[in-house]
């Protein structure tokens, strides 16, 4: 499992816009870089990031080789109701990882 850092509030007022900041440990090997022996290293990147709020997609991003290693993605969402936010990173070589956080809306 890749190490993930998620920064978001545990609770928020109903209707508030909350900021979510994510980091995941991943080499984002671009597929354009020569290795030690001079041949190009195979691409190994995260291609998609999805945030679901109680099962509904509220943010999604398609990533390319131009995203830096250990990808950082920050975005916002509206606190609508207490529930679960899930974060999924998918990519080359069947990479798939999901993390969840609960959000209390008052």
């Amino acid at each position, binding site marked *: 499992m890749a*190490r993930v850092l998620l920064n978001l509030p545990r609770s928020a007022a109903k209707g508030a816009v909350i900021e979510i*900041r994510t980091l995941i440990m991943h080499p984002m090997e671009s597929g354009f870089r020569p290795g030690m022996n001079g041949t190009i290293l195979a691409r190994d990147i995260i291609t998609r990031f999805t945030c679901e709020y109680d099962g509904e997609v509220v943010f999604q991003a398609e990533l390319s080789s131009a995203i*830096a290693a250990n990808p950082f993605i920050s975005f916002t969402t509206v606190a609508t109701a207490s529930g679960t936010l899930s974060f999924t990173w998918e990519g080359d070589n069947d990479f798939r990882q999901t993390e969840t956080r609960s959000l209390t809306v008052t």
Partner: protein
Amino acid sequence: MRWLLLLAALAAAGPRIAAAQPRMPPQAVAQPRSGTQDMSRELQAMQADDSANPGMLWVQEGEALFHRAEGRVQKACADCHASLTGVAARYPAWDDRSAAPMDLAGRIQHCRTEHQQATPLAREGEPLLALSAFVAGQSRGLPLAPPEDSRLAPALARGEALFRQRRGQLNLSCAQCHEDRAGLRLGSALIPEGHANGYPQYRLEWQALGSLQRRLRNCMVGVRATAPAFGAAEYVEIELYLARRGAGLAVEAPAVRP
């Protein structure tokens, strides 16, 4: 004329006098300047923001490892160490058993093999970097405070000599760039004073976290010199000198550097 002769005699006796007593630790740079001050506002912000500093991924990994039972005795670091606040700021330090200076990664290794009775971790391997980052992170904001320990004096002197030793096909010493020419530009890159207050650090060139030893190796490769294997005494001696030289600077680990 006589005073001139006297002066010459004193000068000749000088080295012998110095050798007879433990050498006084060299003074720290009068007002050491952290590499952070030479970075763009944006990189400074990245370093300061724990939710954007990629080095924090290693700190988090290190925290998990710190609490994991390991080795034949199945003990975790956390079983003995509640807090390690300020510890990293005092390394490298003298190690009685090996009768040599030891850096922070060396100390973690020592704990691991002696107290946990576990297999040693590879230098520059991810687990040791992560543990080092977690421990060093607990000294963030505290001043580098190398120990006043006379047993370290010979190694400290060797470290300074290595810092001033020209080497490699380009025949350059650390001091010629990072002391004499700090603040000038090598190509487009501003030469920093080269302080040791941010390690392990997330270097954008590496796209990963790395140790001070890796950074030292980086410069040796740069001047086309041979570089000792990670963990070698030469690195620890330079680390010792750098800690003294940057004394007082706030620990920034895990720092972000270009």
